[in-house]
């Protein structure tokens, strides 16, 4: 296992370097830079830009250097924990994204818990009661969840939460707590608002997970070993939980790689609709305004999370089911 861990760690290094180069290239692809976008914006509003100041800023931010120099400057900054400078906010990127990262993580973490807590019992019930009224009803609910656009559900939930519970529309806390230090009242306010985005963002994921768990579990339940186990008198619950359920969970372990980046960026459109102070809307704005270090930092954080997520899921799979595929060979 240690050897496997080392090999996987080594694969991560060139992967991350390649991703950083691709991210930086993509950010640089649109013509011009943040300052030329700013000049064009000012000119479209009939204002004139101070060209001397623009030249000073271009030099100050290193935008006059070659893209390769800018890339290495950014890369070494990342290693030192310096994510660069946000032109739009005129602040270090670390400061700009700090609180948003925490709130994005909170929403995503609770959403993942919600998804698992709802999807697993329903998925198991649907599979073990295939073609029953309960299965049909839950399947219908699942399809509704999959088919409803999240932004539409967000609007409906905002309205209902305001009418039924008096929750203020939009945001993740009441307006008086924005920018206020953490307190019990602020915490309660966040909890009061949190269930709406969790429900909205989690619905489609929950529905998808129910469908997949049902399908995986049905495959396993139809295998001979399960029939044999039941025929031999193994209690049904034990027979279900010990073997088929475990086997049907492998695809979910492989998905850990996707979960982590969603924790940071997920549901950007829902965040825009619900005015959530998360990373998604900020990433969109940064990409539009060519705030390159801010956008690059977000993309790089997501890339790191994907790579770390895949690494963790590979380790978990290797530990849980270190089995060879029979059409392959064991070579080294």
């Amino acid at each position, binding site marked *: *296992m*240690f*050897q*496997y861990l*080392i*090999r996987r*760690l*080594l694969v991560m*290094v060139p992967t991350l370097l390649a991703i950083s180069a691709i991210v930086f290239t993509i950010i640089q692809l649109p013509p011009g830079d943040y300052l030329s976008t700013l000049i064009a914006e000012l000119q479209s509003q009939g204002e004139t830009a101070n060209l001397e100041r623009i030249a000073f800023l271009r030099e100050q931010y290193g935008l006059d250097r070659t893209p390769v120099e800018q890339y290495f400057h950014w890369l070494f900054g990342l*290693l*030192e*924990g310096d994510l660069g400078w946000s032109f739009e906010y005129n602040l270090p990127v670390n400061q700009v994204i700090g609180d948003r990262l925490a709130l994005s993580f909170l929403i995503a973490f609770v959403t993942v818990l919600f998804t698992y807590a709802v999807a697993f019992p329903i998925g198991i019930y649907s599979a073990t009661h295939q073609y029953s009224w309960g299965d049909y009803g839950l399947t219908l609910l699942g399809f509704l969840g999959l088919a409803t656009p999240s932004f539409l559900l967000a609007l409906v939930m905002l309205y209902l939460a305001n009418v039924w519970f008096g929750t203020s529309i939009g945001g993740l806390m009441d307006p008086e707590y924005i920018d206020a230090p953490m307190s019990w009242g602020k915490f309660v306010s966040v909890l009061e608002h949190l269930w709406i985005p969790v429900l909205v963002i989690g619905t489609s994921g929950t529905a998808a997970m129910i469908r997949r768990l049902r399908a995986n579990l049905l495959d396993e339940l139809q295998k001979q070993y399960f029939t044999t186990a039941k025929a*031999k*008198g*193994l209690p049904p619950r034990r027979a279900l939980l010990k073997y088929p359920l475990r086997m049907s969970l492998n695809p979910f372990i*492989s998905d850990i790689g996707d979960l982590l980046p969603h924790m940071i960026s997920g549901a950007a459109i829902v965040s825009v609709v619900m005015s959530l102070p998360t990373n998604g809307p900020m990433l969109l704005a940064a990409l539009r305004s060519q705030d390159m270090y801010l956008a690059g930092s977000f993309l790089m954080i997501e890339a790191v999370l994907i790579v770390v997520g895949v690494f963790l899921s*590979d380790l978990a799979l*290797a530990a849980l*089911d*270190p*089995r*060879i*595929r*029979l*059409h*392959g*060979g*064991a*070579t*080294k």
Partner: protein
Amino acid sequence: MTERLSYPVKAVMGDYARAAIGIIFTGVPALSLGQWTFAHWLLVPLCLLFLVFAWRTRVRQRTAIVWDDTGLSLSGSAQASVRWNQVRSLKLAFYATGRDRTGGWMQLTLKSDAAKISADSAADNFPAFAARAALAAQALDLPIDDATRANFNAIGIPFAPSVRETAAIDEANA
């Protein structure tokens, strides 16, 4: 008859190269960054991990497993010996190099109350060692997990249900 399993230089060259690359990629930036920064919390532990890996590879290269009908022992850098009838668990794991699990290597781990001995499929004479370990496990009626059983079958060493498992099935049947 005594048999021997060891790692030829060719089998461990890849691991030495991996350790060196890891140490260079983590150690050089850690040293060049100067004062302690956020990155050091990541780079220094990783560099230590690669150093441990290099050391383990060295120990592995200088160690051989020798076995006969009574037991097995490690000779060289590491020392341990286990009698076949003292083996308490046997595991044959497959570590895939790709997500489709079609390429990779196997690692056989034997444990007794006093020692743990591992060998991987890069070593010379691995199939013979695996076959002898399987024989011991079957003779002792050790509990073997499904993955181990499947991996043994994949390398051509048939692994039937154990006596204990058959008895459990018969008991449930009765």
